[in-house]
């Protein structure tokens, strides 16, 4: 098994939204950043992986096994953090330990309480009294404490301050020190992903727009800033999208070196994932 997670032709139709033919692969030992604006289909895809939503078309394999047929076996080895808190708010972190102990065969109370200490989380306070950031950290601690092999995280760093985000990202990198493990991380905080993601999959309006290694994206893609007359000379095949701004054109290109060779335009900026998202969604062609 090369891929710890593999989605083939996943489709799901709702009244006002549709997931169309989603394909996605997460090789072992890697972190995949799943990006897209709110409502693009990230959470729906994740819920399909976890078999929370029903009646979708396509095939989802986790650890090489079918996510529906072998659900029980698979779930033992998955750690999940969802965007909306799923612990009842009247419980305390201590209660969570008791519940999880009965849920997972591999639950490791020692590890769980170690995370609570590392994250400075109280053991005996009701969840509803915790701050948003603390709740998130509690969910992450709970997701990690049964020694999962695959982490599925929906916006795990949203609501966290930069220091806490940094701690959490450290944990994800620690996690893949074991090359049998993998992380699927959806986020719109793209700077976190730029550093640690091996692959980026970009979803928009229910469709995958782009799936590449993060290095390939950040090194080869670029934004050309040019004048209108320069822009008019460009072949349509040489750029992906463009945006006309007040004083300049911003043009998204796929290969900085080739573009520079062909047109001799030197004002090509390095791209960030945020620029990429913006131009892909708001740009025209």
């Amino acid at each position, binding site marked *: 098994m090369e891929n710890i997670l593999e989605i083939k032709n996943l489709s799901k139709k709702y009244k006002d939204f549709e997931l169309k033919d989603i394909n996605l692969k997460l090789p072992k030992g890697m972190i995949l950043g799943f990006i897209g604006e709110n409502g693009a289909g990230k959470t729906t895809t994740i819920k399909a992986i976890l078999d929370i939503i029903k009646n979708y078309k396509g095939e989802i394999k986790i650890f090489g096994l079918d996510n529906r047929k072998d659900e029980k076996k698979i779930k033992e080895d998955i750690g999940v953090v969802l965007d909306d808190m799923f612990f009842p708010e009247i419980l305390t972190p201590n209660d969570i330990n008791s519940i999880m102990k009965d849920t997972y065969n591999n639950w490791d109370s020692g590890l769980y309480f170690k995370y609570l200490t590392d994250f400075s989380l109280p053991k005996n306070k009701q969840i509803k009294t915790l701050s948003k950031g603390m709740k998130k950290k509690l969910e992450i601690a709970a997701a990690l404490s049964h020694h999962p092999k695959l982490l599925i995280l929906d916006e795990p760093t949203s609501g966290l301050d930069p220091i806490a985000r940094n701690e959490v990202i450290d944990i994800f*990198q620690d996690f893949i020190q074991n090359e049998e493990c993998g992380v699927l991380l959806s986020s719109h905080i793209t700077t976190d992903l730029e550093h640690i993601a091996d692959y980026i999959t970009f979803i928009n309006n229910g469709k995958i727009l782009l799936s590449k290694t*993060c*290095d390939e994206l950040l090194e080869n893609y670029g934004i050309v800033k040019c004048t209108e007359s320069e822009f008019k000379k460009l072949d349509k095949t040489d750029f992906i999208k463009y945006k006309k701004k007040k004083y300049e054109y911003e043009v998204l290109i796929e290969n900085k070196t080739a573009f520079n060779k062909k047109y001799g335009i030197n004002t090509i900026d390095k791209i960030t994932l945020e620029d990429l998202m913006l131009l892909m969604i708001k740009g025209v062609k």
Partner: protein
Amino acid sequence: MEIIISNSSGVPIYEQIKEQIKVKIVSNELKAGELLPSIRNLAKDLRCSVITTKNAYEELVNEGYIKTIPSKGFYVAEVNIEIAYEEQLNKIEKMLDSAVSIAKMNNIPRKTINEILDILYEEEN
């Protein structure tokens, strides 16, 4: 081992890692037979992706600076220092070549180029 990564330099991160390890090998700071950090460990410590450090190591293997022993890790190879030195000189010559052609194209005198070099060297110290 010290590796300094700049996120704004425009040089791909895998290349920064590769070049800095190379320099350490050529200058004998890293000695033949020495064990390098694992791909995953290095990625974590440098806060970059695993693919990035993997690329850096793969290229170093291809260029003969390091070797891999399966399920043990990456080790510094016996490197012919003279060849490595020569390679670095070639690289400098290439870069200076493009600098000189820009200078000639714009009629910038050699004296000015020398001055720039002097300034750059002073900055280093």
